[in-house]
């Protein structure tokens, strides 16, 4: 039994281009360790050196943001769907506009 993990475009270099991979674990932290064993380097893109979920990474278990259901300690079950997405609130355009403003200010 396994948990399906959907991988965003920018992390597919770690999964050989695969859009979705399978993993296992009782918690999100376990799952990420399992993924890193199969796809070395992916953990470092999701977790900061201090051990927290990266500020610009959102992870959803069955479409719910894990930050509100226990974070890295969130419990997982076989058959769960996990989706990893970069934070682009308001769509890509919001991001672009903000980057432009930062550039303008700086």
């Amino acid at each position, binding site marked *: 039994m396994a948990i399906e993990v959907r991988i965003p475009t920018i992390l597919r270099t770690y999964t050989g281009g695969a859009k979705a991979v399978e993993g296992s674990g009782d918690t999100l932290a376990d799952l990420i360790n399992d993924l890193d064993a199969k796809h070395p380097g992916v953990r470092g893109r999701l977790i900061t050196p201090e051990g927290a979920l990266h500020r610009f990474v959102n992870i*959803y278990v069955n479409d719910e*943001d894990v930050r509100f259901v226990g974070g890295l300690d969130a419990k997982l079950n076989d058959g769960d769907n996990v989706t990893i997405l*970069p934070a682009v*609130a*308001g*769509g890509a*355009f*919001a991001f672009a506009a903000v980057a*432009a403003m930062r550039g303008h200010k700086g």
Partner: protein
Amino acid sequence: MSRYESLIDACGDTPLVGLPRLSPSDDVRLWAKLEDRNPTGSIKDRPALWMVRAAEEAGRLRPGDTILEPTSGNTGIALAMVAKLRGYRLVCVMPENVSSERVALLRMYGAEIIFSPAAGGSNKAVAVAKEIAADHPDWVMLFQYGNEANARAHYESTGPELLRDLPTITHFVGGLGTTGTLMGVGRFLREKVDNIEVVAAEPRYGELVYGLRNIDEGYVPELYDATVLTRRFSVGTRDAVLRTRQLVEVEGLFVGFSTGAVLHAALAVAHEAVKAGRRADVAFVVADAGWKYLSTGAYTGTLAEAEDSLEGQLWA
């Protein structure tokens, strides 16, 4: 009282309507806050008005000034109306993959539009916006993603209206974009209602929209404070379309796709309450009506076709 001195004065005080057919039971009820009943047809009239007023009071905006705002639509339309009535010029920078109705509306209101490319768009859009800002240092950017007056509009108006009309409210569900609605309404309700649930529904777009080069290019709006929320759902295009169609079929309410995403989350928490045997009054936001999205074709045909037609579009 339904008489107002001008269109701007008619902003807010929108109806809250029950949805008896979609509500799971007499004890677990859904309520829709009809923000499409604002002067330009969306919830964005509130932040547009509050942000302009705040800039005027701070002396940042004087009659004849030019407002520059990056917007994918509704905020631009709202600002265009406010700018027209208050005597400002408006320049909107928007991605070319928004619906044609939005562009037509903006031009009709007198706004000038500068497009940024849709595909692989972020780098080019950055360049476009940078160029404009650098060339025109006297233009005023209200910047809805970081402007406290955006959230304050909802703290001072949308939130109090909801509590006045639904004192038994247990859940508030809204869409997550600039985060202004959820931050403002959420803070207000948390101060007034014990154990209120503040639930975010975030649209999950097609892959094109997430095409960053690396994670460090991500963005969280300056207004966002996660401690205001109790839960946050990601809603895919298919679920948003399904719920949008369900709302018009079952309750006769014709809404934009972002509302479909919000309804999906509202139904999830409503059904959880039923399972747990708890009473619930779930209020959710109808951010706008469906007119501006008809050209997408996503109101008809199969769900798969609808999903295809919205792929790569910013549908919320």
